[in-house]
């Protein structure tokens, strides 16, 4: 953000002080600092991760937006770029990683798979979009999105950060400072703990009408 954008209009600064004094709002300063150093987690799931690395590399150079510091640890990152297909086997780990990130934290669904399952949606091991578990800030379409598309998405995220106010952000409110999402469990299929009762009810309901669903429970381990 340039000097002129950061300065809040409405207050006259004498000409001789113009390069020494700035007047701005706390929100602008706070958001300017945060949006200029969004540290993404070094976390790639599939093909999209390669385009994410390409965006980090010399030609597209994410460093221009203060996003070049990839952190392998969730404890040090601000942004989770879900770059790739989310599978049932992986989603417990993704939720755990999200829970371990400190506030403020953002999630970007990069590509068709993370946004809604993509070409693999019908697959038996595929979660049709990471938004079934995590709150998403920005969706980026593409398979995979080009680095340009990724950068456009990240600029959208910066705009979103710009609109937040320090008085209203959830991590400065009373109560728990972060939202814990219950970690899904791998049973006969993926189970969201929030849906246990529902699963039990539907499984009992469907046992009558099971004849057209999977044929025989073929040899269990």
């Amino acid at each position: 953000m340039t000097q002129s954008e950061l300065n809040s209009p409405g207050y006259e600064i004498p000409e001789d002080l113009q390069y020494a004094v700035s007047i701005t709002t706390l929100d602008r300063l706070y958001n300017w600092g945060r949006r200029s150093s969004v540290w993404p987690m070094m976390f790639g799931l599939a093909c999209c991760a390669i385009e994410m690395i390409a965006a980090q590399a010399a030609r597209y150079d994410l460093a221009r937006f203060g996003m070049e510091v990839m952190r392998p640890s969730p404890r040090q990152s601000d942004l989770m770029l879900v770059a790739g297909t989310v599978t049932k086997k992986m989603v417990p780990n993704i939720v755990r990683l999200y829970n371990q990130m400190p506030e403020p934290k953002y999630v970007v669904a990069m590509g068709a798979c993370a946004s809604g399952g993509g070409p693999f949606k019908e697959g038996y091991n595929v979660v049709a979009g990471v938004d079934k578990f995590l709150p998403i800030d920005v969706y980026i379409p593409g398979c995979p999105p080009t680095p340009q598309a990724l950068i456009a998405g990240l600029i959208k995220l910066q705009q979103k950060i710009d609109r937040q106010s320090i008085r209203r952000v959830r991590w400065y409110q009373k109560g728990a400072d972060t939202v814990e999402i219950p970690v899904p469990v791998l049973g006969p299929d993926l189970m969201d703990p929030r849906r246990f009762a529902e699963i039990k009810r539907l499984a009992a309901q469907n046992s009558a009408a099971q004849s057209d669903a999977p044929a025989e429970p073929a040899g269990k381990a």
Partner: protein
Amino acid sequence: MATLDRTDVLDLAALAPGGVTADTRPNYEGWIVDKARLIEVATAVRDQHGFDLLSSVTGVDYFPESMEVVYHAYRTIGGPGLVFKVQMPRQDPMEIPSVTRVWPGAELQEREIWDLFGIRFTGHPDLRRILTWEGFEGHPLRKDWREAFYEDDYKPLKSRWPEGHYVSAEEKSPYKDNLQFPPNFDPEKAVFDGEASLYGALAKYTTVDSGIKTDHVVLNLGPQHPSTHGVFRAAVVLDGETIVSLKPVMGYLHRNHEKIGERNTFLQNMPYTDRLDYFNSMSNNWGYSLAVEKLMGVQPPERAEYLRVIMAELSRIQNHLILIGMLLNDLGAYFTPALYAFEERELILDIFEAASGSRMMCNYHRFGGVARDLPDGVLEKIRGLVEERLPRKADEFERLLSENEILVSRMQGVKVIEGDNAIRYSMTGPVLRAAGVPYDVRRAQPYGIYDRFEFDVALRQHGDLYDSYLIRLDEIRQSLRILQQAVKQMPEGPIIAGKPQYQVRVPAGEAYGRIEAPKGELGYYVVSTGRQNPWRYHVRAPSFINITPLEKMCVGQKIADFVAILGVIDIVLGELDR
């Protein structure tokens, strides 16, 4: 090349009288072996006839009659392969003897067949689920197993085509999600295996009596780890820093290529192959079109053959450059070499984008040719790259890295694998060649027009980390040699045999197409019943099979070397988990 692939060079029926019959189904090849005689036949095939490399093992469900396991074996000295099959009635329990004692390379592949088809392998050292998890309900590649979003056996789905109605897939499932549970299932009362069987499979730690009582440490690397190149995971038992036992854990990117591929039409599978080894969509396409072209009996025109070679070799160059960059990353040279590599990769991706319209997911091949011709000026760009820029850059990498003291002392003498062991474990690709085995499908059984080019199979002798790194540079130089010849000889002409068509007619039968992908031998096993979609579509993924001996390679090494060993094997998760 279809005739070369017939296996009538070896008469298996004479080898084990009464136990083997020829496979006489039309368009099928090879032999059907009685399951009681399997080990005997396999041992004879390996010891008496030199089929030392078991390329691929996979299952086919001929619902409702029988279940079949298909073996493809090759000689590392080259030549046509041998196909043999074991059939069994389609009734649980299905059991056949494991060939891991003959070819240890079958270990992970047999686990996959157990996981996806539910065929048990007696005598297998560690038969657990591999791509799904312990406790998963059913075996998904059986034809009577249906996923939650199942709609029809064939695409295009009638609900969508030709009218184009769209029903959200979630509406099809009673759980309004991609979920299904057994009748009367109660999640609160269920007890799950969790990871008990994984940790149970790790070797028990025994203390060496040195007067000090020590304890073992179990360490999990991944699935979220910067050095596992994706969502790969290894459970390791450590004694200090030395690895005592190691089990790879995979399936975190299991995207069900093979199940989806059975529903897709033949051509619809082409873009899916892009997403296997997502660095090398151009070579992935080739393996698949080779298999289907064998069935269809079409031959691509000259110009298409040249375009395929050019794209595949460019792909190999960028793959190896990235490998070197990322390997150095793992060794601690944080991102500088990787940035060098990505700079060159971008130039190669520009060419892919110009030719196919996409940087990474090229979807370039068609059965009998390629999708588009090169736009004006691109051939000149390629010429500039392969004659000037890339040779110079290869030298630059050499100058910057190969004699770097840290790199040399970190890599030289750290054994990865010996040549004969690598063959036993079905390893292919650069790691096998770095261990002194000159096996390269481009020479062993040339496909496309590789028999026309002058190039050497890159070879190194020591089988250590350093040689596995150097061989990548060698291969880049050989690829450049091929490219220089190809660019010079490239003829004008059509780029596809016949008219391009969306719905190809593929006669019933089976075919195995294999190519030398940058990561090793990439094979596609396709079974057609004459319909618009394959009955079975199997990918023999080099990344998956190359990590079969991972435990063997790592035990006794330091934990830091595990990262480097995994780095030189060159895995990519899209292909490993499929």
